[in-house]
């Protein structure tokens, strides 16, 4: 019996090659999409899951309570990790982590910049980063320890084995000893590093981090086996009270923790509570995968039922010679399974071919996990689901045919089943229109992020890290650079201007409410900062070396002024971290963080002589190349121990929106695919409709209908379906996208033209699809179509 079905299925596929091709292609594309998204989501979910102690690793976070709001984040005091391990018996290991930093190393005459991090000595005991040389216990156990990756070991010493015990000069300041070599970090780790330096070194270079009132580094702890995370978390809520004595009613801190493996996907806090993060994209794209698969399955249903006019005779015969309905249902579902399997094979080949492109869009290194049985189980489920889902409707419709009518040729589809099929097309196009609108809005928002006026000129600005002797020789450095061609100005800043996020409550002014402690963002900059960055002053002036008093001068922004409520801000006294000073200028608001964030109050002080920071060099438009050559020359002369490195401001700015750009690109691809698959379905339906109406069209032609009127008659019906789909889709899309845009403090509008564009696009594409069939039918010689009766 099975063989009989299989044979019929295969022969049917072969006999109706073009029809089968449409069917299989649609399903294959749908499956390709689903598999790619499945792989991507799976990859996202598996990030940081490879640590053996995963269930005992927790990241500690702070909740800062002030002014009736709660700011939460992974920033903690710089010695929290080690302290927790020392005083809390339930904590087996603890480490602090800093941030990824590109720093300079030297061995012999090799000077190379590498990017990496600092971590405590427990790091390799907690995390499962495989060591090629060295042991977890000794990898970072001395103040001069450094663990490096296989790549860095190869870069400096030729091989991991040769690297062990060697000396690496760090920032031309301290000699470190290689105590371990670890395997290169894969994309399954959320933190990336080619070196890890013992935490002591970090504290030496960052004295502020020893102060329990400051925070910034991350803290990860590993609990002892059998510790209940929940009760433990409750017990550390007030842990900082014993260390940070600056807390009060108006500002206090509570601690919380989160499983480390979840921090990659869930890292956003909203008023002190976890509120998603990347997980939302994983969910969103899972939904898109289901959408596309459903569209493809609906296609299949439509095409199969449409073709059933031809199949009906076979069904009739089978019934007359004794087939029960159930065995016919089985046959059609089986056939769908066969087609789904073909589609899968084709889809899998496509996945294989598209994976490199997909990886370059998503910035991942996804492989097909051929050895993973869970993956194959998912695939089998996918094929079975697709086959069953897409085969079920045709199976039940077709098997219900009455043999007498079918064999006599008097069978007509009931209005109900035609309505249902139309409903399917509407549903398909509804999903497609939602995806089109989504794509347009996402693109528009990404464009908006890229082109929004930030309040300063981010074009033609080069960042140069101040390292080695550059901080102390900054005046000379500045002077030399200004002599080079193509330079418009030089200043400096403590971080980078695209992302200033150091918060502080340590600002006092006359008339400040004693019960409130608003948070200010703070930055230290050089002379002529305002002028160099093309910032707009609302009142007052820039930092200037002609004013000796500027070491105690401060510039604030409008947002800060709003909080401080000063009548005449310029000249008003202000105290910052116990240093008394004066406000010399008020800046118009500008964006110094990603546009996800609102513009916060900022206080800017003069730090011309700071030991670290970034030089900001403005080049004249169109002269970047010459300018860079000149700057490079200056750097190499003044600071020969360090390789010259630089970044472009606008590239750094783009990095803030990496995930949005990925989403934009993916959404584009998937929307196009969805439309394409829907059109395949529409094509099938058009073929069916014209087939059914051959006779009617013939009669109309004999009676004198023009080709145009016939074309209109056939197309109109489909256009109506797309129109209905559009009206269902529009509000749904609006709702979903409005929701998505909420995460941006600054966002584009969902304007009416987007909907109109999406609607017209869908209509146009649908019309183009249908018109071939419509024209063909309209042109057919009526003698031919009527003779068949």
């Amino acid at each position: 019996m099975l063989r009989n079905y299989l044979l019929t299925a295969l022969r049917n596929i072969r006999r109706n090659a073009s029809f089968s091709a449409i069917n299989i292609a649609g399903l294959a594309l749908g499956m390709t999409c689903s598999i790619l998204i499945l792989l991507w989501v799976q990859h996202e979910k598996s990030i940081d899951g490879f640590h053996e102690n995963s269930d005992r690793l927790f990241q500690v976070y702070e909740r800062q309570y002030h002014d009736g709001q709660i700011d939460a984040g992974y920033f903690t005091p710089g010695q929290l990790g080690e302290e927790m391990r020392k005083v809390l018996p339930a904590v087996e290991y603890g480490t602090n982590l800093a941030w990824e930093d590109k720093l300079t190393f030297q061995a012999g005459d090799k000077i190379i910049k590498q990017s990496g991090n600092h971590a405590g000595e427990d790091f390799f005991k907690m995390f499962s980063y495989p060591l090629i040389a060295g042991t977890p216990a000794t990898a970072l156990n001395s103040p001069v320890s450094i663990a490096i990756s296989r790549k860095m070991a190869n870069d400096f010493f030729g091989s991991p084995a040769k690297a062990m015990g060697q000396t690496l000069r760090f920032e031309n300041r301290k000699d470190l000893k290689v105590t371990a070599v670890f395997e290169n970090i894969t994309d399954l780790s959320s933190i990336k590093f080619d070196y890890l330096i013992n935490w002591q070194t970090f504290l030496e270079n960052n004295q502020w981090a020893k102060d329990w009132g400051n925070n910034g580094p991350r803290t990860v702890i590993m609990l002892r086996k059998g510790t209940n995370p929940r009760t433990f978390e409750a017990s550390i809520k007030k842990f900082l009270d014993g260390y940070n004595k600056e807390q009060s009613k108006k500002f206090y801190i509570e601690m919380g923790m989160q499983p480390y493996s979840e921090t990659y996907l869930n890292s956003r806090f909203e008023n002190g509570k976890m509120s998603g993060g990347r997980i939302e994209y994983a969910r969103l794209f899972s939904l898109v995968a289901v959408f596309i698969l459903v569209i493809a399955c609906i296609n299949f249903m439509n095409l199969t039922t449409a073709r059933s006019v031809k199949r009906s005779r076979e069904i009739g015969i089978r019934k007359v010679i004794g087939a029960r309905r159930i065995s016919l249902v089985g046959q059609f579902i089986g056939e769908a399974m066969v087609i789904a399997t073909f589609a899968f094979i084709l889809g899998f080949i496509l996945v294989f071919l598209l994976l490199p492109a997909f990886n370059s869009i998503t910035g991942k290194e996804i492989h097909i996990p051929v050895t993973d049985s869970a993956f194959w189980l998912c695939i089998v489920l996918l094929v079975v689901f697709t086959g069953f889902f897409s085969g079920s409707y045709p199976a039940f419709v077709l098997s219900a045919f009455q043999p007498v009518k079918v064999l006599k040729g008097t069978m007509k589809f009931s209005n109900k089943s035609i309505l249902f099929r139309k409903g399917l097309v509407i549903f398909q196009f509804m999903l497609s229109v939602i995806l089109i609108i989504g794509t347009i809005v996402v693109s528009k928002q990404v464009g908006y992020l890229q082109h929004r006026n930030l309040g300063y000129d981010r074009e033609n600005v080069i960042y140069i890290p101040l390292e080695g002797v550059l901080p102390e020789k900054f005046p000379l450095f500045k002077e030399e650079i200004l002599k080079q061609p193509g330079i418009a100005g030089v200043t400096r800043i403590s971080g980078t201007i695209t992302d200033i996020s150091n918060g502080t409550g340590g600002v006092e002014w006359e008339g400040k409410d004693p019960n409130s402690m608003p948070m200010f963002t703070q930055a230290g900059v050089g002379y002529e900062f305002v002028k160099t960055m093309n910032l707009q002053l609302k009142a007052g002036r820039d930092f200037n070396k002609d004013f000796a008093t500027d070491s105690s001068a401060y510039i604030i922004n409008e947002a800060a002024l709003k909080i401080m409520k000063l009548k005449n801000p310029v000249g008003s006294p202000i105290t910052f971290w116990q240093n008394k000073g004066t406000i010399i200028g008020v800046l118009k608001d500008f964006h110094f963080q990603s546009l996800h964030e609102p513009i916060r109050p900022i206080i800017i002080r003069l730090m011309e002589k700071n030991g670290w920071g970034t030089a900001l060099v403005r080049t004249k438009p169109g002269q970047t190349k010459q300018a860079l050559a000149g700057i490079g020359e200056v750097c190499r002369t003044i600071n020969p121990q360090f390789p010259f490195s630089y970044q472009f401001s606008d590239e750094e700015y783009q990095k803030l929106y990496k995930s949005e750009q990925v989403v934009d690109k993916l959404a584009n691809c998937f929307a196009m695919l969805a439309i394409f698959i829907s059109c395949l379905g529409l094509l099938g339906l058009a073929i069916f409709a014209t087939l059914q109406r051959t006779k009617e069209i013939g009669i109309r032609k004999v009676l004198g209908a023009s080709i145009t009127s016939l074309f209109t008659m056939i197309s109109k019906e489909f256009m109506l379906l797309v129109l209905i789909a559009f009206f269902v889709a529009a509000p749904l899309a609006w709702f979903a996208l409005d929701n998505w845009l909420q995460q941006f403090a600054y966002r584009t509008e969902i304007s009416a033209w987007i909907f109109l564009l999406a609607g017209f696009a869908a209509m146009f594409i649908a019309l183009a699809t249908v018109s071939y069939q419509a024209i063909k039918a309209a042109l057919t010689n009526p003698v031919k179509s009527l003779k068949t009766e």
Partner: protein
Amino acid sequence: MIALQHISKWVTNGGLRTFLLKDINLQIEEGEFVSIMGPSGSGKSTLLNVIGMLDDADEGEYNFLGQSIHTMKEKQRSQLYKAHIGFVFQAYHLIDELTVYENIETPLLYQDTKSAERKAMVGDMLDRFNIVGKKDLFPNQLSGGQQQLVGIARSLIASPKLLLADEPTGNLNSKQGEEIMDLFKQLNEEDGVTIIQVTHSEKNAAYGNRIINLLDGRIEHPR
């Protein structure tokens, strides 16, 4: 074998009943070869379909092999006709995607006959109809007469007691038609298969041993 009493079938169109069959009383014994004749639209095919249980009558009683069909459930009925009735159609109605062999085999699949048994039965049938050489061909590779031969072979594979043929020679030329009719006669006489055929042709009707004339849904009794 077959007893129809007061069988009527109608369609209602705009409140008006149009009778397809009206008050049919008919008795057919085992071993008979009956020809149903009548002009187009007289209800021949409808009557055949009612007898073949493909269609229901709206009124009246139908007994088949002593069982009353009109009170039976769909499932029992299909069980019954699967076991006892074979159909032959004017348009042959072979499954295009299956070979001659597979077409003949299909009814057995639906009756869950075992594989070895199936093979033997289909083999016998191919032999008997002299179409062994054609068993791997598809219907569209055969002439009309050969296709009808396969159709008949298929209808007989489950050894039915009753063979219903709806204008079996309608699509054939006269020579092919004669062969088919000879075959029917032989089946009827040698194998004892009861045959009811619908036909337009007096000549073919004469092969049977009884002729029923239908007009406007009624049996015309010979005067």
